[in-house]
């Protein structure tokens, strides 16, 4: 299992928990699994196309990732709202 860590408003629809153990071949599979476990999070991270929303950054073991980034057991995945603006 990989460990997904979320921040800020994402915690509320995820049972007020910051960390979630999930499995999946890549980031988007892992996030789809999260949506199955917590339907209220649907639409918050992935849009209808299965694309990670533009201002959410994904890090896999500290490196920037995207939907297709492979995920293995023990990996650490962080979802962070992007720092936007000037």
């Amino acid at each position: 299992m990989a460990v997904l860590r979320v921040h800020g408003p994402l915690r509320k629809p995820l049972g007020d928990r910051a960390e979630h153990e999930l499995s999946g071949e890549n980031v988007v599979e892992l996030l789809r699994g999260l949506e199955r476990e917590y339907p209220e999070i649907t639409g918050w991270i992935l849009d209808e196309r299965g694309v990670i929303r533009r201002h959410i950054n994904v890090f896999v073991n500290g490196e920037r990732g995207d939907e297709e980034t492979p995920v293995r057991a023990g990996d650490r995945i962080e979802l962070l709202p992007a720092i936007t603006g000037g």
Partner: protein
Amino acid sequence: MTELLVGTKKGLFLLEGDTGSGFEIKTRAFPGEPVDFATRDPRTGRAFATVTSPFYGPKIFYTDDPEGAGEWQQAGGVALPEGGEQALERIWVIAPGEGEGTVYAGGDPGVLFESHDGGASWAINEGLWEQPSRKDWQPGGGGLCLHSISTWPGDPDKLAVAVSAAGMWLTDDGGRSWRRGNEGLNPRYLPDDASDEVRNARCVHHVERSPSRPERLFMQFHGGVYRSDDAGGSWTAIGEGLPSDFGFPLTVDPADPDSAYVIPLVADMDRVMPEGRVRVYETRDGGSSWNPRGDGLPAENAYLTVLRQAFNHTGAGDGLQLYFGATSGELFGSGDAGATWTTVAPRLPPVYSVVAI
């Protein structure tokens, strides 16, 4: 006591008061979030807010107690079909329907949602979503927004919606089938010899139905103000006499089918009040003549902009109240149908929507 639900760039503000003694901010919700639209369903008292987080996408929230400690709940089903090529960008408007428990929501990209359980769960209107012409629909400057939803008092099957810039769409069967309602609209921003597909890009800015004569609608167009007397099938230009026929918001006096109010802006390339004066224009003869209503509004050096959802009324006839908010944060109100105005709130965040209850 009048309640104002004011959607702003930085949250929802709920104000209570009257134009005589003033208004007080009772509640602020969704702090820091853009609230595109907020309203109440008068049948149930349920409040709705549409919030487009730049991080987490567009959502509809509802509560039966916006002033109290009750939490706002996220409504379900507010999304496009999964696996397509588009994502929902924004919810522009929510309108109570005529059927029991029916509520409508319009959004970008040109999408209508309907709820039949009072707004807790929603589904896309397939008839409009599957329109064969949709592939040719072009967005306006604000996106492909479905911003106006006009129900027909007493008849849940009749509905008129407007999409910028895909024009008017009408249904008589509860939204199963739709037809265009653009006859008479002149898109001056397109070449005269453009193809029919191109000229269908009718940039409607706002539409309101006259509840006391439902076959009559008024429209603020992208260059032009229009009236329809056949339920939106065809339109007659009525902008003569205005300082500019460009603008966004529009409202009506429910008691008078010959009434409409608009707030003109200079032009599409200069979206501020003409002459730096804030004025609402009123017609009481179906658009044959217009009169400025600005007593109490800023009269000089006032280059304000009022967005399409930021002008609303409550009451009717002698009791008609009018309210509008500007992108510069001022909120104005009139308790005497526009004859005199006061500043309701001077320094809100940029105002996106105003609904008066």
